[in-house]
């Protein structure tokens, strides 16, 4: 029973951290229309910054803030050249950046290369509680962080600042003609989304308590896109709903794929599961691009 409960805490933590991660993506794409296909890079930057700093005995809160800042800085360096170009260039540049970053993390010594980093301090570890209890407390911490970010992004989205993002997504030229410096807004949205991803990365590091470059493959970005379009682009509740559905399906299917079925190995079943993600994405794009919560009249996947 307690094992099942612990497992459930893990499931929920995954949902919460991914929700946070997708809120960042939603700010970039859902509100502003920036096609970021390298979101996992900012997760990785956050996770590695936190892991390295905490290993060197930095205070946990400081390390997490640093992770957010470094992620934002990277997005800035990337966005500065790319945002002046066409939309689909940003997609290619971000996807390339994420791949290059992963190769780099795998080949330099201060990240321990493919061995990864583990054994660093985690939050709330001073509490005299069992490991299972800690998992629930950590879940609460993640949920609190995500709730705060959720509320903050909602506030921003409803503000005049958020109105500019929406307008940029709908028609950049008009926004410019009416006097808005759109590049600075795009950069801000990109950096803020990256910082949120960096925060999710820090939480990921504490959740796994061990990270390596393998944790940050491009598939993570596409999972985030799946969650976002599943729930409904441009809606933060969509991120929550998408994450619950996605990990619900994921967990159910992993029940089936944890042991071989008939002639099929677990690897084959795992591959089939990703095929399923792909097919779901395709079907969504054909039949319901606005997602579950989206309405056709609202800001959707396309302008």
């Amino acid at each position, binding site marked *: 029973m307690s094992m099942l409960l612990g497992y459930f805490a893990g499931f929920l933590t995954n949902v919460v951290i991914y929700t946070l991660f997708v809120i960042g993506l939603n700010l970039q794409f859902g509100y502003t229309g920036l096609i970021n296909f390298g979101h996992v890079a900012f997760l990785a930057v956050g996770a590695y910054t936190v892991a390295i700093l905490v290993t060197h005995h930095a205070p946990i809160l400081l390390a997490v803030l640093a992770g957010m800042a470094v992620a934002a800085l990277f997005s800035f360096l990337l966005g500065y050249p790319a945002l002046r170009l066409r939309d689909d260039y940003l997609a290619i540049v971000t996807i390339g950046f994420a791949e290059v970053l992963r190769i780099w993390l795998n080949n330099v010594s201060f990240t321990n290369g493919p061995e990864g980093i583990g054994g660093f301090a985690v939050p709330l570890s001073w509490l005299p509680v069992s490991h299972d209890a800690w998992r629930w407390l950590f879940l609460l911490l993640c949920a609190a962080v995500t709730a705060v970010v959720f509320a903050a992004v909602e506030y921003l989205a409803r503000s*005049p600042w958020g109105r500019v993002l929406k307008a940029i997504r709908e028609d950049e030229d008009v926004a410019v003609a009416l006097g808005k410096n759109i590049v600075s807004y795009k950069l801000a949205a990109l950096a803020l989304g990256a910082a949120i991803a960096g925060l999710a990365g820090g939480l990921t590091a504490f959740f796994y308590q061990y990270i390596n470059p393998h944790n940050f493959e491009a598939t993570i970005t596409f999972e985030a896109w799946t969650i976002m379009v599943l729930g409904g682009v441009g809606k933060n509740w969509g991120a929550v709903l998408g994450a619950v559905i996605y990990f619900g399906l994921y967990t159910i299917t992993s029940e089936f794929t944890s042991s071989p079925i008939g002639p099929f190995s677990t690897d084959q079943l795992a591959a089939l599961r990703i095929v399923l993600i792909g097919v779901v994405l395709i079907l969504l794009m054909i039949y319901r691009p606005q997602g579950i919560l989206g309405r056709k009249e609202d800001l959707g996947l396309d302008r």
Partner: protein
Amino acid sequence: MTADVRPSAPASGSAPGAADGTAPAAGAMLSVRDVRKLFGGFAAVDGVSFDVHPGEIVGLIGPNGAGKSTLFQVISLFLPATSGEVVFMGTPLIGRPPYVPARLGLVRTFQITRVFARMTVLENLMFAAPRQPGEHLQNLLLQPRRVREHEAQVARRAEELVEYFNLGRVRDQYAGALSGGQRKLLEMARALMTEPRMMLLDEPMAGVNPALKEELLRYIRDLREKGMTFLVIEHDMDMIMRICDRIVVMANGRIIAEGDPQSVRENRAVIDAYLGGA
């Protein structure tokens, strides 16, 4: 048509509105100086100079391919000029980013009406208000109250324009659901939200039915009464002749005539350019 379109004074109370006629009395408001725009080797605009004075309605006409649309893009900084200068109220514009003119009080519209379809009418308008503290993240964080107060002002100003343009019944609808005529009015209202001193209208009468045309003409005249200056590109000769104080005629990238409607109508070069299909 009695509504006051004067911008509600911003918190500081210092920025003069378009409507109070305090624009500099002497000199040109917009000055186009020897502007040239080459595409490859082809000169789409080939050394054009003219002025627009405060309170004027100036028409820019010419047969297809005359270069007036290109010139319009250059003046609004949507296309870089090859050489020449455009000065608006003493500020040189060429080489600056395209969001600058609107901030200085020179706002443009688009030939095909472009509203933010998935924002409400009111949101469309509020978006366009200038100098909003709430557009900056640090103010949202540190001065939420100032943001709220200014937002209320912006809303009031938007409401005024909604009333002025008779959009009250649709104020909370998505702009995508409006009729063509309502969109046209919304675009005009949205441009006014930027508190301009001068408006650049890109073929405002394109695809407009006669009733709407009369309505737009009334609005343009009324705004001019309140001190607005206009530069209008237009194909519709009837409209140009009826409202313009002065007309600039282009053909083959150059100005071939300039003057009041009557003199332009009788100008030999203009008649040739139109008849010859230049």
